[in-house]
């Protein structure tokens, strides 16, 4: 019988018990400091390993210094953030495509007050929409290190990665021509 839209072509990993999921290494600070356990419902960072997400490849690549996302060959379209199903054609046969690490500031601001839990110590911090070089994608990101008053729309930025407690990794963009 032909596969229908409602029957997944690829059966995802399914654990029969919750214990199988807790095999992931416990949260630990990147610098070897004592484990820092942010309650899950106050932790902004996603769980990145293959026990918790089907796009763990994104984080594995990021750890290796590559910035990637999913690509739908049928629609010839980049999908951000990485998806397991194309929202346009609902196909599952997506491939990974490397994204440029450089771009420029399309818009930006700074958080001077009202930061969420865990970000208060970083205030003031700059955030912005980064237009990636040569691909039609504007990604929202922390811009650091940066001072709001010294930035202008169009300034070049470059991707960098940083460690996150719990053996995780994330990305931000750094201005490349400091004023």
């Amino acid at each position: 019988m032909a596969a229908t839209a409602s029957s997944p072509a690829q059966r995802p990993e399914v654990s029969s018990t919750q214990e199988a999921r807790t095999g992931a290494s416990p949260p630990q600070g990147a610098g070897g400091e004592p484990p820092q356990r942010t309650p899950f419902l106050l932790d902004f960072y996603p769980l990145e390993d293959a026990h918790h997400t089907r796009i763990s490849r994104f984080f594995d690549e990021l750890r290796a210094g590559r910035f990637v996302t999913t690509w739908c060959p049928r629609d010839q379209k980049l999908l951000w953030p990485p998806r397991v199903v194309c929202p346009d054609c609902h196909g599952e046969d997506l491939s990974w495509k490397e994204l440029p690490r450089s771009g420029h500031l399309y818009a930006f601001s700074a958080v001077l007050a009202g930061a969420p839990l865990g970000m208060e110590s970083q205030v003031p911090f700059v955030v912005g929409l980064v237009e990636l070089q040569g691909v039609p994608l504007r990604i929202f990101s922390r811009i650091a290190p940066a001072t709001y008053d010294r930035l202008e729309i169009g300034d070049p930025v470059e991707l960098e990665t940083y460690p996150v407690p719990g053996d995780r990794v994330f990305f931000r963009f750094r201005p490349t021509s400091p004023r």
Partner: protein
Amino acid sequence: MSGRRVALVGGGLSVFGVRAATWGELVQEAGRALFARLPELAGKDVDSLFVGAAQPERFAFQSHVAPLAAELLGLRPWKVVQRTELACASGQSAIRSAYAAIAAGLSDVAVAVGVEKMNLPSMAEANTSMADVLDRPWDGVQGATAPPFFAMCAQRHMKEFGTTPEQMARVSLKNHAFANSNPTAQFYEKRFTLEKLQKLPMVAPPLRLGDCSSMTDGAGAVLLVGEELARRYTDTPAWIAGTAQSTDFHNLANLPSLTEWGALRRAGQELYRTSGLGPGDIDFAELHDCFTISEIIEYEDLGFCPKGSGGRFIEEGESELGGRVPVNPRGGLLGCGHPLGATGIAQAVEVLDQFQSRVPPARRVAGAEVAMVHNLSGSANVHSLMLYRRGN
């Protein structure tokens, strides 16, 4: 508009502000105000209850809030009882859902409550909840809350159209001035000048404190009924004359524009098409001024003025009483505060109060017959609209 006509016949509000009151106490205050205004209303007649609440789980550590609100109001709804959640538009969602249920014949008498308790002992925790409105693992994690997002909209609008910080401050000045005649407003009797507003501290540049609505505690309740029941409660109902909603995607990478809100444009066109009315027919509008720049972009995308000229629209007084379209006579979110779930309800109460001439002259839109209510939610990617017509 087809189907059975639906009337808004009564409303009540708690005082908005930083309140020494719990989520449930705010609900009770709003309910008391509704029942006080409608002596003909008995709790046993209310067949449906819709509770607009954005984040009771995170702000009040409470879910399954619709039956809780029913208990607090002494209601035992037997047709529909549910919560509606659409972030900043949760209150209007409650009204739209009640409207749909009544128009379809499922409900006859429905209460829509909106409530939010946002001032917590730790405001960092409250801000964490605000940061999960956007796409949390991708945008929220980077520090995306409402102020920096709308600041980017302002930055681009200034660059593309020459909008100025002073024009933005004028939106705040207008709405705070209106709030001075509204005793339920968070900034009731707080006076501001253009100079003072432009010297307030920056929150997310170019937005200053006066450009941003507040974290507010508050609640509101309204009664909606089928057309044949309207006269039981009032001689001057507000008839729902239209409603529309439109959506863009959620992740900030997938927003088409920061300065032209396509979903608002589409919702506006749908509202005008289905009601047979146009921007020129709107006697006043309650627009979602979560930030000053929001109101400026809304003038444009609702067709009150051409794209890019929203700054001049406020500067030339076109959104003041006597202007082309008076906007936010209630005091707006800037002047009243913005308890997420309660805002849409409070805007509807203002419409009814205006139609029934219950507001003081300082904010009365004389002879108002048609009013628009607008809420945006999230990164301005969802826009919800209602149109009301005064009944005689």
